């Protein structure tokens, strides 16, 4: 699915990611964890080719990223969205069908039915006609998951989807992601909260600028591993 060779990314003189090499399998739910500032978001953005990298090769489905963009659904942290935009919920989901439509083709009956189905899957059908800003944070996150579903992608990348949302939305989202995994899709999720990491994910990528560990969730959630990653942010551990 994703194979990454020696990925290094810097912001000016600051090295955000240093020599990451790994490859993921098909049909896995993979969590990307690590302390704040460990380069988790940078990692996912550089997979999408949205930021320049110093060195390294990334191939997805055995091809360069720019050739397979339409097979990837990316749900960023939605700080870049204009919440006052004159668009309602179901038309936001419909945007997910645009990559496959390409230029000069308009969404028809098939696309609209798909958007409605995706909205229903995240439990937001009654909100279809609402303006996008008139939803709670959890509902907005579910709308963007529905839009990703409408992209009918093979690889899903989500950046901190559970930040600041309600418990019900979190449960719905993880349920949908597990179903995608069961259908053989690969799902990569940036996640900051360790407590549920083992419960949610099959595999974990533990980052702190370098790749510290990558394996099944049980293997990675080892105190030693976590200590190494979180050392700087848990000074009380040093004292013990």
């Amino acid at each position, binding site marked *: 699915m994703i194979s990454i060779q020696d990925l290094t990314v810097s912001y000016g003189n600051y090295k955000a990611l240093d020599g990451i090499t790994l490859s993921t399998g098909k049909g896995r739910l993979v969590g990307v964890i690590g302390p704040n500032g460990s380069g988790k978001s940078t990692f996912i953005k550089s997979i999408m080719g949205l930021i320049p990298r110093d060195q390294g090769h990334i191939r997805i489905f055995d091809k360069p990223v720019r050739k397979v963009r339409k097979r990837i659904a990316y749900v960023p942290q939605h700080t870049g969205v204009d919440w006052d*935009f004159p668009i309602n919920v179901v038309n936001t989901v419909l945007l997910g069908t645009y990559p496959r439509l390409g*230029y000069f083709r308009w969404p028809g009956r098939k696309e609209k039915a798909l958007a409605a189905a995706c909205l229903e899957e995240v439990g937001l059908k009654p909100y279809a006609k609402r303006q996008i800003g008139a939803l709670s944070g959890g509902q907005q996150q579910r709308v963007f998951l529905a839009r990703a579903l409408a992209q009918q992608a093979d690889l899903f990348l989500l950046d901190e989807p559970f930040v600041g949302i309600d418990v019900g939305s979190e449960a719905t989202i993880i349920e949908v992601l597990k179903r995608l995994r069961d259908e053989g899709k690969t799902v990569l999720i940036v996640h900051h909260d360790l407590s549920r990491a083992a419960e949610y994910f099959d595999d974990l990528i533990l980052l702190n600028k370098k790749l510290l560990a990558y394996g099944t969730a049980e293997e990675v959630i080892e105190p030693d591993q976590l200590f190494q990653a979180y050392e700087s942010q848990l000074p009380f551990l040093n004292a013990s």
Partner: protein
Amino acid sequence: MTVLEFINDIIQYDFVRKGLFASIMVGVICGVLGCFIVLRGLALMGDAVSHAIVPGVAISFILSINIFYGAVAAGTLAALGIGYVKQNSRIKLDSSIGIVFTAFLALGVLLIRHAKSGLKLDNLMFGSLTSVQSSDMWLTLGIGTVVLLTLLLFYKELVVSTFDPIMAAAYGLPTGLIHYALMVLLTLVTVASMQTVGVILVVSLLIMPASTAYLLTNRLSIMMLLSATFGVISTLVGLYYSFSYDLQSGAVIVLAAFTLFVLVFFLAPGRGVLWLAVGKLMRSSQTRASQTRPSTQHAAAKLINHGDQSP
């Protein structure tokens, strides 16, 4: 001149008809393109690019080529220049806009003086609907067709890149190219609007009808339709006053658009400022009523009890 006489003039005189045609065309294209300018937060950028075409117009006259080429070249150069200054230094976007466009405009003012053409700086700056030529009309029609067709063909891509630029980039849309393409459309619209509103005030015809429409709807298609309608109403009012009272058409158009904006801003059903204030007032009087109700009930109960007690 009454409106009826004016309509009679439209039927009778060719030059009034040309003015009418140009007004409607400009109202529509400014209204529609303006929606994207407003939603992308490019009002200041629109102002800059429209002013920056002036030296291009002057050079076109000096070289005796169609002003269209010079204007598009200057407008695009200014948009690229603004982006270049911002990306390659710590200077922020608004300053970068101020630096580039004033320099272009100043150069334009000097060049026009030396172009020694029949071109009047005043007409270029503030519009003159009474002097619309056949060639202007065809240019406006051509530009209008190109702009509206482009917006229609790339509607999907414009919506995605405006609403969620990260998603647009992630699925491979050339977001930078889309931005500069919009800037080119903006210079085209400015050229088309020169005769009607003039370059100084064209930005208001881009911003005001679209903003007025934005206050009224949550659907982009309706917003574009309303915006085009408000644009046309404004230009028609401008046309009427510039013919009847010999006023500068640009200034009248802007004030007409502003009047529409003010009306909607205060009176729009459900979200106008006045409407909201009345709603707030009613809610607070309702809570006051509900606060007083228990005591009224209490008094009523007392009365009833009193009645019961009395034999």
